[in-house]
């Protein structure tokens, strides 16, 4: 399924830029008219021409502002589309993804922001840069067909210059975004690992590494900018030379000094009009050149976002499991890219508690992740109800307690409610107490409104586990996937949680990965992976 957003056309903003060019033609006409009137000394006429000039420049101001605002609307639409495509990839990232978390976040925020200038300015300007010069040449033709021909003739080097610069720049822009992503990845990772870094006194080394990464971003960005500025300079140079060419032609025509027989004889008004139009002829292309960096970065960002959006094609919504399912693993191999674990074959009977035991590092967690589609089964297959239910139907309809308990900033109740957002306060409190959080709720004096931060600071290992159990209880699903639910707990607490799981899990399919013999002994049967 391809859920990548369609390309945005940006026609409306381009129309505003064309209107701006039309006003520029009018402005040039009034100015040259005014200059032609001055020798005659007709103040009334002169005033009219000058008022016309001012009016048209006011209109230009409005058109330019309109182009910017309408372009911004279009860019907002494009960004919203890419967010819809890319956020699922971030929210269902495979634990232990190849990329660092900070890189993914940089893509989902910064790269989508990079699309702003591309859609708001570059794309409309590109449309305008084709049509506006033709319009101006057409307007210049009645006054001086030769000057109009000169203008059109200089278009060719522009096109060539743009094409040449484009191919050289795209690779540099890709590398720039890679370096930026890496920098974000390092910042996020090293801040997360700050306690360890500080504990080992490794601040200097980490600081040097980060300084290097910031330098790399600066160097790569400068490399991309150099290409953008160079192509901008080439544009400007051609524009200036072409304007000078028109100026010299007009001047020599007026002096009647042309080395070739002139097909036309210009008046001062006509010459000035053409001369004023010449810079306007190149203005759209110069504006385009100024937005060139936004093109480079925007296109490279689109590439990264397309890769991210494809990875995150969201699963279709499914209906809840009707009853506790039976699971069957058939020669399942979990593929981590470099390392593979398996093959594993075993049955998980419906409505029973099954414990998986295996030496550390054998891939118990990966098997549970595979049930959620978070780890790729490289070979083999996992059957739910003998294939009557698709594996993709499980996410969203299971109880889950993983090795690490994820906490989001918010209250204790918010964190438990993640499992079922429509649960009432009473329901949340009830499961919290059933999971054994009662003493903590009473002791802290804030009840369920206790605020937790991103690290869950102030929670003990056992309290985190109990939050995860409370979520499982709140979800009340027919299938539970539990990964070491009693890790980090003392024997008494572990026994307590084991008893809760045993009692509450009765009649459900419970798949439990654990090293704890005491916990495994509670299961109806055990699978040992070797």
């Amino acid at each position, binding site marked *: 399924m391809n859920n990548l957003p369609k390309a945005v056309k940006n026609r409306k903003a381009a129309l505003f830029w064309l209107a701006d060019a039309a006003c520029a033609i009018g402005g040039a006409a009034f100015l040259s008219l*005014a*200059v032609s009137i*001055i020798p005659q000394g007709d103040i009334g006429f002169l005033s009219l021409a000058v008022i016309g*000039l*001012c009016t*048209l420049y*006011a209109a230009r101001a409005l058109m330019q502002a309109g182009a*910017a605002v309408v372009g*911004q*609307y279009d860019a*907002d639409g494009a960004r919203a589309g890419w*967010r819809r495509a890319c*956020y699922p990839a*971030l929210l269902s*990232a495979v634990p*232990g993804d*190849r990329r660092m978390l900070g890189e993914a*976040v940089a893509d989902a925020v910064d790269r*989508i*922001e990079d699309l702003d200038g591309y859609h708001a300015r570059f794309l409309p300007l590109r449309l305008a840069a084709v049509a506006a010069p033709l319009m101006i040449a057409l307007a210049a033709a009645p006054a001086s067909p030769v000057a109009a021909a000169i203008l059109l003739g200089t278009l060719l080097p522009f096109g060539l210059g743009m094409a040449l610069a484009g191919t050289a720049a795209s690779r540099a822009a890709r590398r720039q975004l890679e370096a930026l992503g890496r920098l974000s990845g390092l910042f*996020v990772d090293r*801040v997360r690992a*700050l*306690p*360890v*870094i*500080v504990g080992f006194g490794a601040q200097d080394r*980490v600081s040097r590494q*980060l*300084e290097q990464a910031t330098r790399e971003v600066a160097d790569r960005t400068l490399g991309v900018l*150099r290409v953008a500025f160079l192509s*901008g300079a080439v544009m400007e140079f051609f524009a*200036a*030379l072409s304007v*000078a060419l028109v*100026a010299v032609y*007009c001047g*020599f025509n*007026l*002096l009647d*000094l042309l080395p070739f027989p002139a097909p036309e004889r210009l008046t*001062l008004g006509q010459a*000035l009009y053409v*001369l004023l139009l010449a*810079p306007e002829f190149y203005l759209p292309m110069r504006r385009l050149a100024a937005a060139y960096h936004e093109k480079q970065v925007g296109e490279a960002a689109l590439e990264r976002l397309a890769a991210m959006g494809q990875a995150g094609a969201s699963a279709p*919504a499914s209906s809840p499991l009707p009853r506790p399912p039976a699971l069957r693993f058939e020669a399942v191999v979990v593929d981590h890219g470099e390392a593979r674990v398996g093959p594993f074959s075993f049955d998980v009977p419906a409505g029973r508690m099954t414990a998986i035991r*295996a030496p*550390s590092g*054998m*891939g118990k*967690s990966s098997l549970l*992740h595979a049930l*959620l589609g978070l780890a790729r089964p490289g070979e083999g297959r996992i059957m739910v109800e003998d294939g009557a239910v698709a594996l993709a139907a499980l*996410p969203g309809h299971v109880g889950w307690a993983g090795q*690490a308990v*994820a906490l989001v900033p918010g209250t204790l109740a918010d964190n438990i409610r993640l*499992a079922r957002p429509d649960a009432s306060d009473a329901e949340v409190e009830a499961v919290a107490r059933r999971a054994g959080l009662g003493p903590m709720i009473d002791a802290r004096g804030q009840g369920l409104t206790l605020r937790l931060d*991103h690290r869950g600071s102030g929670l003990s290992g056992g*309290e985190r586990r109990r939050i995860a159990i409370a979520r499982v209880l709140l979800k009340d699903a027919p299938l539970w996937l539990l990964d070491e639910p009693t890790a980090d707990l*003392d024997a008494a607490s572990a026994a307590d949680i084991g008893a809760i799981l045993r009692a509450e899990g009765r009649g459900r399919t419970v798949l439990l990965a654990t090293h704890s013999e005491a916990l495994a002994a509670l299961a109806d049967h055990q699978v040992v992976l070797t």
Partner: protein
Amino acid sequence: MNKADPETLLARAIAPQRPAVRAGMLCAAVAAVAGVCLLGLSGWFITGAALAGLGGVLVAQSYNYMLPSALIRLLAILRTASRYGERYYSHKAALLALATVRARLFDAILAARDARAWSAGEAVAGLVQDIGALEDRLVRKPALPAALAGGGAGLALTLLAGPWAALALLAILILLPWAALRLSPPMLNRPAAELAGALGRLKTDMIGYAQASPEIVAYGMAPALQQALEAEARTADRARLRLARGEALIGGLLTLGGGVAMAAALLLSDGPLPLRVLAALASAGAVESLGALVRGIMRDAVVGAGLERLRALAAQGEAGPASMAVEGLAGETLELPTPSGPLLLKAGERLAIIGPSGSGKTRLAEGLAGIRPQEGGGIRIDGHALADLPPDQVRALFALSPQEGGLLSGTVLDNLRLARPGIPEAEMWEALEAASLAQEVRAMPDGLNQWLGDGGMRLSGGQRKRLSIARALLAGRRWLVLDEPSEGLDAATEARLMRGLDGWLRRTGAGLILITHRPAPLALCERRFDLGAAASGN
């Protein structure tokens, strides 16, 4: 003043880039003068040529057209080259300076007293996005010289056509930046701050959620969370739209000003026609050269919002009062407070700390490792209260393997190297052997260079723990602090790990503080302290 104040950091970072800044300014001034002269000269040339042409062949022949036309070409080249130089040098100075600011601000984060207080999302939003917003201020440094040079050249040329035209231009040149200065803050400051805030929150939320991906998938929370994130993103979009609208309106004044300036020059100038045309076009050029200055004034809103957020970030990183270092602190004795009087440990002794969940075992371990500030408390090292010692000195005595492992996104090698600089490879293997992980690392396709995924999540829970223990061993500290070292291990691996640790401790003579509630690790320790009993005894 705070060392990490962003303005100070910025000033310090830009100092070494001064030559590039100056080159950028010079180029900008040259480009502005060349631009104004180019426009004015072209108009004068054509008008002059027309009048000469009207005067007949003789006058036309004597009209000097060679010099102006050559001058026009020269000015065109000059403007192009100097415009490129301006952009290149000012961006170079800005980017290199910002790289330094990023590194120094990260240093401030590293130096914070409470290492656990930082949110990765807030930090990365500040270090990447808010510092990026400062780029505008640095890049636009040449805007003022460009505006002065361009305006000055325009005024000089207009003056040729009489004082009134020049006076009108001067008024417009003053009025436009003044209007931008007056209009920008009320129109742009709020949206700029909202934009930066919304993007920062978006990043923080995303990082929080992304770490919970198994829960999100298991409970099907993705659509709800996505909606929440998109709502935040829309807040950013709305703010940006208001920003764009304000900037477009203020920018429109500049366009309008150009038209009015030309009109005023035509109406108010006197003298010969070529000079009046020159005055009109030079006026337009002078107004155009204000462009960068006016845009810079508008971008100040974004820069200000970035600075404001960075100030908050830097304030969070206050290092706290510095404590006096104690000469010769070696960690020979360690004193822990208990209800029945202090518990005294001598170097090389091994203590197991037990107690039910929630009795504060981890808090104690983090306090010892110097990563959680101690308030009072009775822990003493060599007779000095830990709370009074500089954190660096405390940290140099203890090597912690935290409960959650605390691995870097990187390779096995990256993680082990964190322990101390210049560890020989043989020693790494010894430590991996002691931590009972060597065999598994050898079996990895890339061995020590195996990429472990984000936060080491490609390893199993037990493997992460053992790698973190191997790293703590390599630090070579007086005391080893292990928080639940055998959690997530099967019994056989746990037994091997304990034998390996025992051997390592014997060889190095390091002391051990071990936090556990499993029976096997207890055998490693000759002494035991029950934190739960201590708490209930209170």
